[in-house]
């Protein structure tokens, strides 16, 4: 891959990579480190990419692995206040808070599908899972979210 093509591809993916890194690391300082390392690693290891058509999934996987390494090194408990606010609320609970109820194992595939529009095969390749595992985790994530939402809906109606 030429450098020009590489830069083009990174430009097209930077939003996705940012959102994925933010969902895992939750603060801009760590996200900056993660994205920088991801870009450098992607360039360094591009000879392992067999088909340029899979560049997006391949770089996503690198980003996820880099974020996990940073998480291990930092060992931080991230406060919810560090996440950016969102105006979207459902019965008093923000979508951000709703996503926080999910363990990362379920949150990541869920976000990759619903926020980034990746399909099960792409997510499976990015996370080193089988497609059935991806579907199963997304399904479980939705069950938990629905349960949380139903709980807050009841609370909200009871307080009226």
């Amino acid at each position: 891959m030429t450098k020009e093509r590489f830069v083009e591809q990174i430009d097209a993916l930077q939003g996705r990579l940012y959102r994925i890194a933010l969902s895992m690391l939750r603060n801009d300082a760590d996200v900056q480190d993660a994205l920088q390392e991801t870009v450098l690693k992607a360039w360094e290891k591009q000879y392992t990419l067999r088909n340029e058509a899979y560049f997006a999934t391949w770089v996503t996987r690198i980003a996820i692995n880099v974020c996990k390494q940073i998480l291990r090194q930092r060992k931080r408990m991230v406060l919810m206040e560090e996440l950016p606010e969102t105006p979207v609320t459902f019965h008093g609970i923000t979508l951000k808070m709703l996503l926080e109820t999910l363990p990362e194992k379920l949150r990541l595939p869920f976000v990759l599908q619903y926020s980034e529009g990746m399909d099960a095969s792409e997510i499976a390749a990015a996370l080193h899972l089988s497609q059935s595992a991806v579907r199963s985790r997304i399904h479980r994530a939705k069950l938990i979210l629905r349960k949380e939402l139903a709980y807050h809906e009841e609370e909200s109606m009871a307080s009226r």
Partner: protein
Amino acid sequence: MKKNPWHPDDLRQVFPEIPENISRLVMDTANSVKEETEMKMRHTVSVALAFVLVFICLMGVALAVFQPRIAEIFGSHFGQDFKEWMEEGSVASAEDSVVVEGITFTVNEVAVRNHGLYGVGTITPGEGTLLLCEDYPATEPYGYATFHGEEAPEGTPTVLEKAKAEGCAIKQVSFYLNAIGVDDGAMIMPNGWGADVRPMRDGTVQFLFEVEDGQAVSAQAETYTIELEAVVWNVSADGEADYENPVRQQWTVEVQPQPFAEVLGTSPEPTVTPAPAAVDDSVTQPRQVIVPEAYTQTGTLPVYKATARNFDSKLDYTWFNQSGVASEEVYANHTGGLVLFNDEAQLSWSAEAVFYETYDGTYEATSFVIEGREEKPVTETLQKRTMTSEACSLAGWMHFGFPGTDQVYSLERTELTNITLEEAKAKVEALLAKLGLEGYSCTTALDMSLERIQTMGDELNRQIDLGNLSTNKFRYDYSTATVDNEGYYLQYHKYGTEGDIAGLFSGTFYVTADGVMEVNLRDYYQPGEILSNPEMLLDAQTIADRLPEEMANSRWPETLVEIHQAELTWMPMRADTGKDMVMSPVWVLSYSSEEYGRVNKDCWAIFNAIDGKLITAIFN
């Protein structure tokens, strides 16, 4: 219409657009990469590849790229969840072999996750040999794992038929896992380990092993050393294995596992721990805390050097029985022996265990063997235990949960016709003293009066008739019991009463007026000199707060319900460096957990009291 709460547009708002400064950083980084590096790297790769190809041509060695299959294999047996769980650990290619009787035993791969070590291997026959898995009869279809659920097509020849048709010898094969070492430390025999052998279509045998034992398998080590034993038995033309004459060969495999993702060529994938849930004090606070007296004064306990016990040179047979020795066998290769007394009692021992039982004649027992696909009854002659020994067995059922009812019984009488509880304890403690064992205390006492022997014996027969206990033990007429059979069932422990420690230092005894009539004793290590005195130990609550997170990391979906007890005691473990063992302070937590809607009350976990690391647990 109700809005979908996770509409992509809304989700993207949770994580906003990439800020300008970060976008600039990303693009600056992308623009800074050097194309010369790319060309240089490709050149380097090409040169390296060329060198490898030349090497292959010169040496004739096949180049194999390691693509681990162990997680997939274990996943096919234990489920996709287990595969994924294992893949968050580390893996190594072993390809380490030993040849026994022309048969090659190879450990292919080893994986490690938490305190679990897993292996897969292949047993390959030599020329003119067909392999038979242990426990597979030669009348089973060749090459099909029928005991594992595979269906062989009609007409598939059996192992016997194929051997006859091709003029091949049949050899039965198996393996044993003897010990595990970590980072050049002491080799430890695991408390238990799982094994599986199954025939493959190509005539080889696949074997699996798994060890989940925190004492033997450290969670994060560089090198794991596994001591295995390959076993081969000759099989006759009739399909009978010659179990009297096994050919054994030990071999040691050493591996250095790397994270799965690293092996697969992506960025290193460290184990990701789920974010720990907030600690709920009402759940993690132990209801009871037990500590040695020394701890209450100093807040710490010493670390002792530990040496392995060896009963071999310690036993005086007259401590157990005075009827005289009928026969004696002392094992040459493995420490231990077997003594038969004139009154049919038996004393047997190994380096770290002693057993004594009493017998009275024989009886004909019905067992079953599998011929073809049918179970056929066979009669065999077995030794019959004395009524005293049977009383001990009844007491065991009453202590752990009676068949059919699961009811547990407790001490009712401290005096029986010819012996008191205190006298019984004194006899056991005198025996322990003779054996050089100190520090034991009686943790369970159950009285077996004549009335109890007869009542519970009849109840046991009733439960057998109801089908609640499947056994071919002798059917006793408990009305023939006498006051001479009365006695006390006693359990003694030294370090803790739960988990693996309890198994390493424990004794069960049955004592009548005639003496200690039944012994089942294990004592693995002797504490020696003090090696160190830690300044402070972690307290019970600090340790208890770690339990939920450790449970969440395990492969089993348990939830903590309540911690009954935290006990501070010692446990043998590897020294930090070298091959020594030490007795080091640990906290033993006894707790209840919920799994799949069921509450388990007999759970345990053992933590290092110095650094707080989980050593072993029921979920590990």
